[in-house]
Every structure is written in C-alpha cells, then in structure tokens.
C-alpha cells in the first residue's frame, strides 16, 4: 500500500505533467474562445469581456485541469460555457439592444461593418432558436469544436449533435 508521501508525490507529478504550455494555449485557444462568445452573444465587446473572464478563471483554476478527464480545449470551452450562462442569466433582457447600439456607435471600416452586420443578423436568427441550438452553433462554428467534443461538453450523443446541427444550419441557410 502506498504511503501518504508516495501518493502525494504521484499526485504532484500528475499535476505537473498535466500543466499545458500556457503561451501556446493562449495563442491557439484565444480565437476559439473569443469566437465562441461572438457567435453565442453576437457582440464583440461582450465577447472580449467574457473571453477575459474565461482565461482568468482557467488560469486561476489550472491545477484542477485533468488531462485524463478532458482535452484542454474541451476544458477551456466548458469554462467558457459557464461564463456565458452566467452572463445570459444576468443580462438576457438587454442583449439585443446593447448589441445593436454597440454596432451602430462603432463607425468601423466598411468590411468590418459588413461582417458585424452579418454577425448581428446571425445573432437575430439564432435568438429564435432554443438555447441548446444556439449554443451548439457557437461551439461548432465559433469554437471550432468537433461533434465529438460537443457531445462530451453537452451530454448529447455525437450523432444527435450532428443531426441537430444539420437541421439548424438548414434553417439558418433558408432564412439568411
């Protein structure tokens, strides 16, 4: 039977081995997390704010990341999902107006405005869908998660994720 000291050492080594390269993680994952929030909420400023919160939270909780439980990207996106949920709970009644005001006040270059308008349009179409479908789109197209990763995150089966997304994309395409 292992002594407490041996158990502690193994635990320490396990945690040390699971520590990702944070510089690489930051570079790779920042656009995914940022776009997850853009697709989820349709607002760049809010996306930046919630992306910051997600990375700060992940950084503070990094010793709780377990490679044997989930890939790092999946873990990070699971934090982002919770951050989005918290935000939606607190802000839901005000989001559409804020999004519209933010874009109207920006005065960005033409191509950015076009892109923002498309994002706003997508956001408006998504808001007609149930929260689950909205989130699946954000995970798939914003966070670039695979159907398998989305299944892990949401508890849906992989085939169910594919079916729902196919249906949602067709509906969005029709209304676009």
């Amino acid at each position: 039977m292992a002594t407490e000291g041996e158990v502690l050492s193994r635990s320490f080594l396990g945690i040390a081995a699971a520590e990702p390269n944070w510089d690489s993680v930051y570079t790779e994952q920042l656009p995914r997390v940022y776009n997850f929030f853009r697709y989820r909420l349709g607002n760049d400023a809010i996306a930046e704010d919630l992306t910051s919160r997600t990375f700060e939270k992940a950084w503070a909780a990094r010793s709780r990341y377990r490679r044997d439980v989930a890939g790092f990207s999946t873990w990070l996106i699971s934090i982002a999902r919770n951050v989005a949920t918290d935000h939606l709970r607190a802000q839901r009644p005000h989001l559409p107006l804020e999004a519209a005001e933010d874009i109207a006040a920006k005065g960005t270059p033409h191509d950015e405005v076009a892109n923002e308008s498309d994002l706003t349009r997508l956001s408006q179409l998504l808001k007609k869908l149930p929260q689950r479908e909205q989130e699946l789109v954000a995970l798939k197209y914003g966070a670039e998660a695979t159907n398998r990763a989305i299944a892990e995150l949401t508890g849906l089966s992989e085939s169910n994720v594919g079916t729902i997304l196919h249906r949602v994309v067709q509906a969005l395409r029709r209304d676009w």
Partner: protein
Amino acid sequence: MEDQFLHDLKAQPSPEFAARLRATLRAVPPNAVARVAPAANRAKWFAAAASIAVVGFAFTLPTVQAAAEAFLDLFRVRQFTGVQFDPQRLESLGSSGISPESIFGNVEPLTDFEIQPVSYATVAEAGQAAGITVRTPAWLPNHFSSTGITVSGEHAARITINTAGLQAVLDTLGLADVELPEGLDGQTATVRVPPIATQTYVSSEAVVTRDGSSIERSVHIVQARSPDVSFPAGLDLSKLAYAGLRVLGMSRDEAYRMSVTIDWRTTLIVPVPSKALAYRPINVAGNEGLLIEGVAADEAWPGGVLMWSTGDETFAVAGAVSGEELLEIAQNLQ
C-alpha cells in the same frame, strides 16, 4: 458547402485585446492562483468553506472567536469583498504571546452562546422560528437530498475596545505605518446576529479518496436577516479598515486604496485563507455576491462557498460541489 457562411463570420481578436489580456494574466499574483492542497487538508475542504462562512457571517459564534468576528462585523452587511490572507501570519501572533481574546478588548456576551441550534420538522416551522421565509432550492446536483433544517438562536455581544491589544498586534507584525483612530480606546460596539436557518443536503453517493476512506458530500444553505451592528458615531471607519487590512497582510498601497474606496457601513470583508483556490465577485439573481472556490487538486470533488445579500437578508451556500453548482443552487432558491 452549405455551412460556409457560418465559418466566414469568424474574426480574430484584436491585437490590443490579446496583448492586454496576456498582460493581465501575467500580472496575476502567485497567491491568487491555484495551489496543490497539502495532504493534511484532504477531505476537510468543506470544513474550510464552512469556517469561511462562519467568519463572514459571524454565524454560530464560539465565544473565543466572537471578538474577531464581531469586530469585522462593524458594518451592515449588504455586499461582500474578499481579502486574501495567510492564516500562519495570524497564528504567529499566538506564538508572540498575544491572546486572540484580548486583541480587540473586552467582549461581553449578551446572549447564551452555548445554546445549540434547534432542528425543525418543516421549513415553515424553521422560518417561523427564524422570523424569515426560508427559501428552498428548486435545483440540486444529482443524488443530493435534504437531511434537515436547523435554526440557531439570536446572538449578541458588546465589545469594549482596548487599543493596547490592537497596538500590540501592530507592533508584533511591524506595521509602523498604521495609526489607530483617535478616541477609539474604550468605545463600545454592539453586534446582533439574528437567528440563522441552515438547510443541509447530503449526497447519497459517497466519495472515496485516494487512501480509500469515504467522504460524505454535503451542501448547506444558510439564510438570516443581516447582522445589525451599532457603533459610536464619528468613528473613522476607513482608518480602522486600513489597520485591519494591513493586519491581514495587504500592502500599504492596496490597503489604502481599498480603505478609502469601500463603503464600510455596507461592505463585509471576508478574509479568504490563502489555501482557497480563487475568489471573485459574482452576480446572484441581480445581487453582487462573493464566490470562494476551495482547493481540491488532490480531491475527487471541488468545493466552495457563495455568499450574497438581498434586501435585508443574507445568504450563503457552501459545500463540496463546484462553483457553478453553487451558483445554480443560489439562482434557483425559491
């Protein structure tokens, strides 16, 4: 490809934002990030979370702790702010011959602190005893079920401040920059903590630790009218707060900034042991609360305590569940 239009909406974060966030993460001080819990803390983290709640709310006050907690409660609780501290820093005071009971002066209990909380058969009966409408969770993590509700009696104490004890603490810690407010010596403050209702929920699934022992996971929901504290008019609370923050280990600049910007008549400082994983303000149904998540690196489950205030009532949810689950419970009290 029919979904190409969805891919095309992606954008890169602005370089300014990316740089700003990177700088923010790099600036996070070492004591604000996760740590590996020592083995001695294994399976004790709910106790740690509970002790935080006790400090924060002055709930179920043991006589010895009453002085410190009552002193921290020289404010009407409307919001919470966490301040990290190293418990060893305060424990070192004991080795210097300073008794915790004598730090603030004389504490005179006005109620019987030995009376144990009373169990009630129903939430309604408990609410009647506590003088509140007890709110119950519409959502709990899987496998959790109620094991009962208790109500503690009202607690009250009068503190007569003795600045000699406070000055001894400052001297021992070498805090020459701290100046106690004039006229503090001999002042009295009266602390009243209304009856507290505590609901307990326990998981039917025990957790087995690495060493094979079994841990029972529980969640406690604490609710009470906010503590009511009276203190002499004209007391320089910001100066007193600066002293307290410096004793807890905060830097001069940070302690000064906080002491002059916080409304000390409504904000309760919650000392967060440095072993806690992280703490942050959090919105609970429109009210700003404080979430403290505990160290669980060598545990099967995380844990924490979430506290907030709404109207004239103060709440805490604490237990061996994640911060997200604590928030979910809090958001679904009805």
